[in-house]
């Protein structure tokens, strides 16, 4: 089965409609964070939810479109962080299939792991393209590590490792809470249903 056949069979109206919502969640979470004044990004929640409910390919497409639209609306810097979103989508999809959304602690653990991987992928982009500065609240950490004599890439990587696992851990926990509260009849419309509920409860 080639990619166009796969897309025709798997990207059904409920899936692409949910992908649109995933894009909106990714872009709109900034508003939630600003409204409630919580010190996080949560900008990949939509991608994680799509990965859990629909699979890896829809999550990857959601992530790419989210970052493209974010670069059009918020900051052009978002376009350069598409690889990070790809890694998050890929790992979230794989972890869902491994049963990481069946209990809250597994979800947090998976989120922390994804956060570490995201930090490793985003560090070179942030360091070589922006000198480690993205005008986010975590920039002071880069300044601190840099002032202690660390190389730029190392400083950006340490900053990412300090903040990303927490952010992604909470993102995965939020996704788990939302998906576990979701009514079964709604979840059953999506292909990822069997990975989100214990088999004996079906």
């Amino acid at each position, binding site marked *: 089965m080639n990619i166009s056949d796969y897309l025709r069979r798997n990207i059904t109206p409920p899936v692409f409609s949910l992908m649109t919502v995933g894009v909106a969640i990714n872009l709109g979470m900034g508003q939630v964070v600003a409204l409630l004044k919580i010190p996080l990004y949560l900008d990949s929640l939509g991608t994680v939810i799509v990965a859990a409910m629909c699979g890896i390919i829809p999550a990857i497409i959601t992530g790419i479109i989210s970052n493209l639209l974010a670069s059009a609306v918020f900051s052009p810097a978002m376009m350069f962080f598409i690889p990070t979103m790809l890694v998050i989508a890929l790992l979230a999809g794989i972890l869902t299939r491994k049963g990481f959304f069946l209990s809250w602690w597994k979800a947090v653990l998976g989120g922390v792991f994804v956060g570490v991987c995201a930090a490793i992928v985003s560090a070179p982009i942030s360091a070589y393209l*922006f000198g*480690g500065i993205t005008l986010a609240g975590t920039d002071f950490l880069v300044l601190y590590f840099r002032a202690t004599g660390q190389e730029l890439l190392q400083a950006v990587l340490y900053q990412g490792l300090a903040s990303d696992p927490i952010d992604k851990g909470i993102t995965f926990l939020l996704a788990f809470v*939302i998906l576990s509260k979701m009514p079964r009849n709604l979840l059953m419309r999506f292909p990822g249903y069997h990975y989100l509920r214990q088999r004996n409860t079906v």
Partner: protein
Amino acid sequence: MIRYLPHPVPVFLFLVLIIISGFTLSIVVRFIVSVILLLFFTFHIHGKKILRTILRIVIPLCIAIGLFMTFIYPETEQWLTIAGIRLSQDGLTAAGEMTSRILLLFTGIIAFFNLITIQRLGSYLYQNNLPVWLVFILINGLKFVDRFKHKLSEIHFYQRLRGMPLENIWQRWKATVKILIPLLYFMIEESSNRAIALEMRGFTATTRRTTLKPDRQSAIDRIITVLISGIILFILLRSILS
């Protein structure tokens, strides 16, 4: 005021040219090209919007990066002292390198999204055989953000009305979950209903739809396309040969 609104193809090639230039031109040339672009956009139909975005996003970022690279550059050995402030030659060079690149790249990206709206880009891509669902996501993604924000403020308003405490960080955390669950449930359920409506209207039918106004390139667009393609080829060949 320039009234010309280009076709997506020359604008996309222009973005590619800007990205290549951002990594191949020297610092001074990058600054000069950025200033020329900014002057051009000042007189363009969307100029005010483009300049406002650049002033709001790019300039603060460039200033922050410039200061950071200039003052915190530990590996350096050469130092200059200007008005009591110690500056390093390497730091200044790195600051110029990075700020000029960001100014040029970001100006190009901001110009791209202002010269071509997402709706027009989606319409053009659909005419060029992009799957209809992908165009649907691209065009409706931003519309759904407005819906998301509207519903968010509605839920937040009613929860405050019921007396939800939001004083300390723990209460705000709990409020986040209490807001997100109904909000996302509403969004997902609405998307599911929309999917049924789309399916009933034959949205995923394999027959291609006709378009009322096919998006074709004008003579000016073709000339610009050829010119930019030539410049890109020249830059690529020169960098390969050198």
